[in-house]
């Protein structure tokens, strides 16, 4: 299992801020996980629709679609940041 966190507009799109999910079987990467989430229902399809910008952090470090995932990881999805 891994922990997923959602922030800002992405959290509002999917309607949850935190959940536990099983990792995709086989070669588990951020990209494989996002494919799995997209197949759930319309909210996730919209949140991760092509052309919609999102960023990902794995264990609180900026990551990319190719980043490998392991059980126990904390994976956060959010829109491009706007602080400062």
């Amino acid at each position, binding site marked *: 299992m891994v922990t997923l966190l959602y*922030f800002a*507009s992405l959290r509002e799109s999917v309607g949850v801020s935190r959940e536990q999910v099983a990792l995709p079987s086989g070669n588990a990467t951020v990209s494989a996980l996002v494919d799995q989430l997209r197949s759930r229902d319309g909210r996730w399809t919209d949140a991760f629709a092509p052309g919609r910008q999102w960023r990902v952090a794995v264990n609180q470090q900026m990551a990319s679609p190719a980043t490998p995932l392991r059980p126990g990881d904390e994976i956060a999805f*959010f829109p491009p940041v706007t602080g400062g």
Partner: protein
Amino acid sequence: MPRVRVQPEDFDTGRELEALTRGRVDVGAVASFVGLVRDANDGSPVKAMTLEHYPGMTEKALTDICEQAMSRWDLIDTLVIHRVGALKPGERIVLVGVPSAHRGEAFAACEFIMDYLKTRAPFWKREETPQGARWVEARDSDDAAAGRWSR
């Protein structure tokens, strides 16, 4: 060790910058940046703003940015204070303070820290406008500004 704070409370700019040099005689320059909430953005009046962040990662990201600055330039210290929660126009959002022996290093590092903060630190602004609340969109110009520092 960089000084990094994420807090809902306001800060006293003068006191914070003074603390960077207290008891030291090797500082020749302190460059600083203060970011404020504007009363308008993208053509709409802004009545209020809420800053969301990713507790835990935010502090790590800011510390990492400061450490990168300290490895690139000859700095004596670095300070970043960033507020979160509800803010009104005119209020302070962020303070960066960079003491160094010479101004060139301090100016460059201060700008680098802000450019990286804008594109790498997990904060999100939500604005209250007369048309309702909206999430602030990231700007391509911020990515371009951060990209200037890539070697």
